[in-house]
């Protein structure tokens, strides 16, 4: 039994290999020879028979975990998840821990984790690898596809190297070229100030933010690095107007903005899972829809970016995917499409949630250049990330959420 790391770029067949490994001799009768493959689309790994943590655990026969007294390592993994919480209210990291625990509870002989660990913050990720996966690998064969290999590598027994398949789409170079052309553009966007902003969920009565005062300036990337469940997505939801702050206000420039009732759109949100936001028959229809909505409403952006849907499709190297069904596209392509939509939406501020998820090294470098170009063009950019792929970006500011407040981590004004 061993822990094997899959190393390779996008479109190298890592996911297919991982699925083949996990499902190679899975029998329909139950435990014997069963393999578990955990897809990067987290919700597809849930049973669908339950709405709460308790229900999901029951389906996987882990219901009595707390009463058991002696918690084993897998049970410790989920011990802090509130039993009655709805699955839809869990953070991304909590869901990842839950699905891993549930997969292990089915007593598989093989476990394949496809980009699943990338969605955890560094501390949880290391804890999971050291305390759960390494001991488990003595009795269970575990294969992991992951792009943040620096911290996993030393714990793995072997590495499988993959290379790009012939005919695979070239995505990094077009993105770099597009970034170059974007640098020449200039838009005017106002700064955003959170004034004494507090927020708590009424259902749990838990304070997420308390008296936050923070300035977001356009033209420099904000790297938001905070533990799972600390309120990163909640911040985005407040800026989008999906949650109304309990107290405090949001100022855009010198004007108060109430996104929960104002028709203007301040922020475009790129979801961690892009499947949530894609709509329409194909990517051209989707981008047209976003562009049309952007042009048809009042915006905070003062001098809009003059760029068309076809420019974005060509520029981002998406030409060969135009006719394909949006939902059948690979994760990296879906994420790339949402990058295009973010530019076309005329929102001025863009909130990227784990944009590097699923990207290989060259893809990450290209994405970094793209974000720099966005900032140089004048966009406001907030990037939620757990890795170090964007560290040291020019003019970047690393922020975190600590004690229910947004705080500066490191202010690094350096040129890479």
């Amino acid at each position, binding site marked *: 039994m061993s822990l094997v790391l899959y190393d390779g770029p996008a479109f190298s067949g890592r996911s297919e290999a991982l699925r083949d490994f996990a499902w190679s001799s899975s029998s329909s009768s139950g435990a014997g020879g069963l393999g578990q493959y955990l897809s990067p689309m987290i919700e597809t790994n*849930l*049973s669908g*028979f*339950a709405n709460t943590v308790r229900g999901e655990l*029951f389906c996987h026969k882990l219901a009595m975990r707390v009463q058991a007294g002696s918690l084993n390592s897998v049970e410790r993994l989920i011990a802090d998840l509130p039993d009655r919480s709805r699955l839809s209210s869990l953070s991304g990291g909590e869901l990842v821990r839950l699905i891993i625990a549930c997969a292990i509870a089915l007593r598989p002989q093989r476990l394949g984790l496809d980009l699943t660990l990338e969605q955890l913050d560094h501390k949880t990720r290391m804890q999971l690898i050291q305390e759960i996966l390494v001991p488990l690998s003595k009795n269970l064969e575990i294969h992991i596809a992951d792009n943040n290999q620096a911290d996993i590598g030393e714990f793995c027994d072997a590495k499988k190297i993959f290379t790009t398949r012939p005919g695979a789409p070239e995505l990094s170079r077009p993105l770099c070229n597009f970034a170059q052309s974007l640098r020449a553009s200039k838009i005017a966007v106002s700064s955003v100030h959170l004034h004494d902003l507090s927020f708590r969920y009424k259902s749990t009565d838990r304070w997420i933010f308390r008296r936050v005062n923070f300035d977001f300036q356009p033209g420099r990337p904000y790297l938001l690095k905070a533990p799972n469940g600390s309120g990163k997505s909640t911040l985005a939801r407040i800026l989008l107007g999906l949650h109304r702050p309990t107290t405090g206000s949001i100022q855009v420039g010198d004007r108060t903005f109430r996104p929960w009732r104002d028709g203007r759109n301040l922020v475009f949100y790129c979801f961690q899972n892009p499947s*949530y936001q894609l*709509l329409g028959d194909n990517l051209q229809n989707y981008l047209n829809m976003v562009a049309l*909505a952007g042009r048809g409403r009042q915006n905070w952006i003062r001098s809009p970016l003059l760029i068309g849907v076809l420019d974005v499709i060509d520029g981002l190297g998406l030409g060969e995917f135009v006719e394909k069904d949006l939902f059948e596209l690979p994760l990296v392509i879906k994420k790339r499409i949402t990058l295009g939509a973010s530019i076309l939406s005329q929102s001025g501020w863009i909130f990227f949630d784990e944009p590097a998820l699923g990207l290989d090294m060259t893809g990450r470098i290209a994405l970094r250049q793209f974000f720099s170009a966005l900032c140089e063009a004048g966009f406001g950019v907030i990037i939620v990330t757990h890795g170090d792929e964007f560290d040291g970006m020019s003019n970047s500011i690393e922020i975190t959420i600590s004690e229910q407040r947004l705080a500066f981590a490191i202010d690094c004004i350096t040129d890479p």
Partner: protein
Amino acid sequence: MHPFARLALAVSSSALFFKHDLIHLALSLPIIFGAYLLTGKARLLLMCMKMVAPVLVISAIVWFVVYLDFRTLDFGGAWLRTFDRTSHFVELARTVEFTSVIFLLLRGIPDGEILPTLRRMGATHFLATVFANAEAQVSTISDSALQSYTALRAQGIMSPTWLSKCKNLGRIIAVTWTASLNVADARRETKWRHNGFYSHQTANLERAAVSTNRWETSVALVAALFFIVTNVAGLEIVENVLGSL
């Protein structure tokens, strides 16, 4: 609640269809309310009432207007015909009462336990699976609907105004539909089929211990008994009591 008590309550509540008098329906109401409240499902009752009460009120008004003779303005006659034992409104009220009991039984099943509970209630494996899948699909759709709303707002396609929400209703439905199908399909292929979750569930179904709360079981059994008494012999009992007075 023990699955047997659920079954007993479900069967006994069908006694609502034995007699056709409004008084039987009125007598059944406190039993239903009591069952909800005593099993700690007050929120569920409230939700049920919020959904059903407007339908009942509107239905009563509509039938009253239909039966009202506008030439003579015979309000008394219209009232009697609306609440007559054979009227459509009373039929609806009876169906609503019966449904609310079934609602209590099924929605009261602890999360994740629907498949083993239905099996213990005597449903065939096929029927239990179909029902559990349908219930799972409903929750997937409701999650997707919420997600679709968020997605449209997050991309500036829909603004928070009511007008914009109405304009984008078609899009919300379309996105919800595609997203639900997408998730359900991926889940079926990955989790249920290849990861062997479904076969694991099936194999362990008989051994799965479902939650059985003694208090809830007792309440359900007493309610079942009351249903039979009130609906089969209720009117006679009331008449006897009134007669003895």
